[in-house]
């Protein structure tokens, strides 16, 4: 099937308008949309299911006989699936998450992807993070949001990656986003002596160096942030306690810190956490079950914690993975890189339910689930209906919202 025709067919009823950068220059700064009272207190948490989560064994299309044909060993028996409707249900390890779904806290968006899908982790992750398929963007979609959302410039914590390494989604042109894997370690030891610290502070503001380096300005800026940030962050999140029982896993620890930040005075609008790796080419079941179980329990604890502090309605959480996996399992009881897969919206503003078309397992695109919802439509929905800004300048194009948020 021709790509162009497929695209138009799949998106009938939706119009995708790609636009050039110049149309959406910085002059067209974001303007808060009317009718979103309280949006300035809202927080968006992005959870990256890194490595390519197998959508078909996460949201299982048990009602489709083709599923059991293409997954002779990996297929999850209908009786075990945590059913959402007559067609699909969650992987049996996602019991906590299913309970949240039953309370209307979870929207499942099916078949999310983009045209001309790339099968490389590296490139496809970059596409999701920069929201720029077909071109090479140098900023992340949330970085662009942070740059132009009119947030207080002096605040160092408008966005925080709860991660060791900065994700591209938060790379901004004019906003420094720290990656803070844990509060422990985010503090300078150099103040064993006030004089050292005072001298250090003065050094960091001097740009008159006897060499030119493309990185000098950046080093000076980050040194300043490191000092100010490490002095202020502990106080901003001090005294936070919770009864929520987070799993003792990296994601559990990341989300516990995220909840503490939300509950503090950092003014943070965007948080990013990472979970994985879902790259299950071999013996998929053990790995994916463990990871989905950890995800389910950690997100449950996260919202328990947020609710305990009256923050649950302030926080919208969204998952994404760079791609789903091949429809047919491979010879190693695993699956290879695929295309579209479902994602989840959880918490504040969510209209619980199932959105988008069920995966088509018979008319596949070179063996993969074809996409039916462009991921930028989901981003547009988050930007406009949750963060309260126009989405076109951030996404450099107009994408129709989906109905999953109030």
């Amino acid at each position, binding site marked *: 099937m021709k790509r162009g025709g497929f695209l138009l067919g799949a998106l009938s009823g939706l119009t995708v308008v790609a636009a050039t950068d110049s149309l959406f220059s910085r002059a067209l700064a974001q303007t808060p949309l009317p009718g979103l009272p309280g949006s300035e207190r809202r927080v968006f948490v992005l959870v990256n299911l890194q490595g390519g989560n197998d959508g078909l064994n996460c949201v299982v299309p048990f009602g489709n006989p083709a599923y059991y044909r293409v997954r002779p060993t990996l297929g999850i028996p209908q009786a075990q699936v945590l059913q959402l409707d007559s067609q699909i249900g969650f992987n049996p390890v996602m019991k906590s998450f299913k309970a949240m779904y039953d309370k209307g806290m979870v929207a499942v968006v099916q078949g999310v992807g983009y045209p001309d899908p790339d099968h490389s982790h590296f490139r496809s992750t970059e596409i999701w993070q920069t929201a720029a398929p077909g071109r090479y963007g140098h900023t992340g979609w949330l970085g662009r949001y942070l740059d132009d959302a009119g947030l207080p410039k002096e605040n160092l914590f408008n966005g925080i990656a709860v991660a060791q390494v900065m994700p591209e989604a938060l790379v901004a042109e004019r906003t420094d986003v720290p990656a803070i894997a844990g509060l422990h370690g985010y503090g300078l030891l150099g103040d064993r002596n006030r004089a050292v610290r005072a001298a250090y502070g003065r*050094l960091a503001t001097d740009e008159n160096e006897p060499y030119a380096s493309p990185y000098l300005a950046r080093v000076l800026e980050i040194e300043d942030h490191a000092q100010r940030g490490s002095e202020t962050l502990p106080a901003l999140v001090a005294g936070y306690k919770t009864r929520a029982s987070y799993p003792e896993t990296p994601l559990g620890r990341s989300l516990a810190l995220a909840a503490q930040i939300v509950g503090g005075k950092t003014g943070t609008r965007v948080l990013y956490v990472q979970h994985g790796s879902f790259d299950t080419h071999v013996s998929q079941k053990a790995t994916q079950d463990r990871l989905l179980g950890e995800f389910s329990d950690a997100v449950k604890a996260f919202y328990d914690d947020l609710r305990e502090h009256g923050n649950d309605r302030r926080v919208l959480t969204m998952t994404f993975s760079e791609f789903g996996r091949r429809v047919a399992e491979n010879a190693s009881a695993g699956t290879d890189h695929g295309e579209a897969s479902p994602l989840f919206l959880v918490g504040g503003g969510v209209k619980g339910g199932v959105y988008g078309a069920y995966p088509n397992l018979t008319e596949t695109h070179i063996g993969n689930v074809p996409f039916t919802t462009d991921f930028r439509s989901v981003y547009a929905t988050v930007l406009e209906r949750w963060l309260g800004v126009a989405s076109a300048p951030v996404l450099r194009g107009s994408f129709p919202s989906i109905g999953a948020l109030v």
Partner: protein
Amino acid sequence: MVAAVTHSDVLGLKRPAGELDVSRALMPYRGSWSRREAAHLLRRAGFGGTPGEIARLAAMPFGRAVESVVRFPSTEDLPAPADIYDSRQDVLGLGPGGLRALDPSERRAFFANVRKREVRSMLALRSWWLDRMRKTPAALQEKMTLFFHGHFTTAAIQKGVTPAMAYEQNRLFRSYALGNLRELTRRVSVDPAMLIYLDNARNEKRHPNENYAREMMELFTLGVDQYTEEDVRQAARAWTGWTYNRRLGRAVFVPGRHDDGVKTFLGQTGKFNGDDVVDIVFSRPQCARFIATGLLNFFLYNDPEPQLVEAFAAEIRRHDYDLAPAMATLFASDVFFSGRAYRALVKSPVEFVVGTYRVLGIDRIGVPAQRALAQMGQILFAPPNVAGWPGGENWLTSDTLIARENFVARLVQSEALRPSSWIGEVPMNATQAARTLIATILTGDASPAAASQLGDYLDGAGSEERVRGGAYLTMAMPAYQLA
């Protein structure tokens, strides 16, 4: 639709300002040769010089100095890692029936123990490599090994890549440090760690696995958009048959699993095997461009101009992918010693840590350094993904900078910093002391204001604090983050 991309399109890589004169760029350098240039060469072709090494190199004629770096001495006398855990010995020790004789809880306990010992073994292996970087007389050999580690990425102990495999791959990289890159790529393709990390070990005739074939072209040799999905499938077929035999502990080729049919790959047709695929890829000018971009990004400056990439790629092709002459050209070139390249790279955490031990004359890099490296965002044998470490601005966030400063703070306060090194000789006079610290640690790369503030601080500090606080403050200056 999209122009060809290379590593330079990675976010956060910044090209120096100003115009490059490409006609002179790779011509031999004819400018001044002093401690400043010698230290620059030692930072790039290694992990930074000790004060003594910088002085010795600066005292040589320029040509001999470059040659001494590129024609490094044999390192066969350096010790191998003490003990690398190999789980095969424990499997063999299980007795008749092996793993199958164990009940599920015994199996879990067995694997938990294997895992524990592998984690410990990796810690030892990382300490060994860091310490080798610190003390080797062949710094460029280790620097190239680190380059290859980030280029042909493999992570241990993931997916069953054992410490022994990680070490074997590390040795392979070292043995080809300035060798032929085509030959190295052939060897890497069937190296046990790579066979397992990118699934070529599971690639067989009836179920080809495309993972290695794709990443080999995208990340190791050509870059994205230089091949079709069909090329990926055909290349995967060519490598079918290779696998890893756990009993023998080595890579083996199983003819019955190999697809010996005709393949059409990048426009050529034949009964290709994996070596043929490598040869076809290396015959493309784009391959030399891609490699040139990677090397320039790592050794010269980030986001190199297309004309410079083209010129260096031509040099690489002229030497048929032999890296020794190509790298010798680069390290003796006009552009390498130009203001464009000077302090134009952000030090990687490994360069930062190893260089700090070297300049302070502290030996034995241990586990605390590894903890610091993890906080700075670089764990050896565990790159973040198959694309390696992106570098440039990606190293610089407030939290990683805090980790860098705190690493220095701990080190200069520790017993390991002995007054017997040069630092014990820092003059008493505060102004002179500041000048000495800045000259030795930064080859003078500090602003006058910073130097005077350092002097103010040293004035009145006790003798112990003068050394420790002085070193800390000097290393907190911006030049110390830059290579």
